[in-house]
Structure formats: structure tokens, C-alpha cells
């Protein structure tokens, strides 16, 4: 168990640049009445960012972009299951189970 000074400084710098975008909006927005258009725009962020994160989970960057077909295959029933149960926990468990089963049977 050890830690070098240079590593400590590097981690501290990375912590600072990570914390900044997380905290800044909370400091800016409390002193600012945001215009309606901006509030509307922010209202679209959850759906947009969650979609982008989902997509980033099944594509590999590069030219041309490639797809992770195994993930896509399991995603379809997982979406249907989420729509049916409306439960975060059950959907995560269901998805993991399907993925494990697919790997078990496909080798």
C-alpha cells in the first residue's frame, strides 16, 4: 500500500476537473432566473442523454461504427420487460439473467 506524490497530484487534478462541471450549474442557476426556452431545453436533457448512453453501450466508435449484436439482441426483450413492469430493479435483474443465459447457451 503506497502512494506517490505525483500520483496524488494527478488524482487531485482529475478530481478538480470532474467536480467542476458537476457543481457549477448548481452555483450558477440559483442566482439566475432561466428563460423559459432554456428550461424547456433542459427538460429534454434526460431523455436525450439516456438515449445517447444506451446507444453508446451497443456501438463501438471508429470508422465504420460497429455494433455489439449480443447486446442489441438482449436489449429488445429487456425494453419490452421494462415497459411491462415499469420497474428499474426487475429490469436490471431480467436483463442480466438473459445475458447470462445467452452466453451460457451460445458458449
Amino acid at each position, binding site marked *: 500500500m503506497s502512494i506517490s506524490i505525483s500520483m496524488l497530484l494527478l488524482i487531485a487534478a482529475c478530481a478538480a476537473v470532474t467536480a467542476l462541471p458537476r457543481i457549477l450549474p448548481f452555483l450558477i442557476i440559483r442566482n439566475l432566473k432561466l428563460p423559459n426556452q432554456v428550461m424547456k431545453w433542459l427538460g429534454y436533457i434526460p*431523455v436525450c442523454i439516456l438515449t445517447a448512453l444506451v446507444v453508446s453501450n451497443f456501438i463501438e466508435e471508429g470508422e465504420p461504427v460497429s455494433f455489439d449484436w449480443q447486446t442489441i439482441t438482449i436489449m429488445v426483450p429487456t425494453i419490452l420487460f421494462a415497459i411491462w413492469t415499469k420497474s428499474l430493479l426487475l429490469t436490471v435483474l431480467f436483463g442480466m439473467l438473459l445475458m447470462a443465459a445467452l452466453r451460457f447457451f451460445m458458449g
Partner: protein
Amino acid sequence: MEVIGKAGEKVRLDFKQGVKDCIPTLLGYISIGIAAGVVGVAAGMSALEVALLSILVYAGSAQFIFAALLLDGSPAAAIILTTFIVNLRHFLMSATLAPHFTRYSVGRNIGIGILLTDETFGVAAGKVQQKQRMSVSWMNGLNITAYLCWIIACIAGALFGNWIAEPEMFGLDFALTAMFLALLVLQLDAIDPVNIKHYLKLVLYIAVLMLILSCFMSSHMAVLLATIIGATIGVITEK
């Protein structure tokens, strides 16, 4: 277990409820955290350094990239800049949640922001969508539970990582994808049926944008840009 999405459902959003609402995301945290610990040690970091990284930086994708760049022998400036870019998406998430917490003190707002992750944002955005009024204690319950589990998972990965056989065997790597999928479905489920077509079109646009952008840039930049462009299209095409 709370079934999200029922209109008119009133659950008191206190600290304890925040802890409860965090539980579905924990499988994702634990699996990714253990992996981040293993990768950190593999990149030559000590368990103590891995622990410090998870405590101070607390960001999954950034920790993976940190380890990868370290192994590559990248200069410190490159590691810091990459970490910044990878985590820049949190700016959008914080900006989305911040208007709901302006009634609290600066200190409390900083506390919420500094522990915000993709997962806790997703859960909180679900509450916003259902028009439930979030309290700072609820947000802290959610954030702190996630934070502690993440740190424990990272340290466990660093210390015992070699003992764990293939985590893929249990489908653990799919936990995160399934979670984002479910959070997206819950978001769309809470939308007024009149607007659902508008949102589904938006989902399609984002998917196409992601495919195009990923040809030219890292997936983190693609997520950031696709979200910004997508939300703008959303506002412009709104009726």
C-alpha cells in the same frame, strides 16, 4: 418496491426513501466498481491509489480511462484533459436538476452536485418527470448510498479482483445497459401521451446522431454532442 410511473402516487421523499430508490442501481455500481478496481491495479496503481481515485474522482468511465492512459504512459496533462471531457456530460445533468434545489443553501447544492452520477441523475430525473418534489435529504440518501457502494466495490476489485472469475458469465456487464434502458423507458412512460410521438422521434434522431458522431470522435464526446443537438431539436420542433 416502488413502482415508478403511477400518476398521483405520493411517496415521502426522505433520506430513507433515497437509499431505497438507489437499490436498483447498485448492481451496476458494484459490477463496474469491481471492474474499475481490477483495471486500476492492472495499470500499476496500488489499492490505496485506486481507493483515493474512487473517493475523489468518483466517475466510472473516467477511472477506466485514467487507468488505460496511465498504462499507456500518457502525460499528466492528457490524462487530466481526457478526464475533464469524459465527465463534461455531468454539466448538463447538474443544470437539469439544479432548478429543483434552489431553495436550499449553497453548501447543500454543492453537496448534491459533487456526488451526481449518470445513475443518480437518471433516478432523480424520473422524479422530476413524475412531478414529485425532491428534497435534499432524499437526494443525499440516493447519492451517498451510491457513493459508498462505489468506493467499496472499487476497493474490493483492487484487493480481491483476481479471485473473481469472469463477471461476464453472470451478465453483470449488462446491468448498466439494462439500467439506462429502464430509466429511459420510465422517462418516456411518464410523458403526456399527446407528446409521446415527439419524444420517440427525438430518440430516433439521437440514435442516428450517435451513429454518425461516433465515426469521428470518442463515444463520450458523441454522447455530449448528441444530447445538446437532440435537446435543441426537441425545443425547435416542439408544438
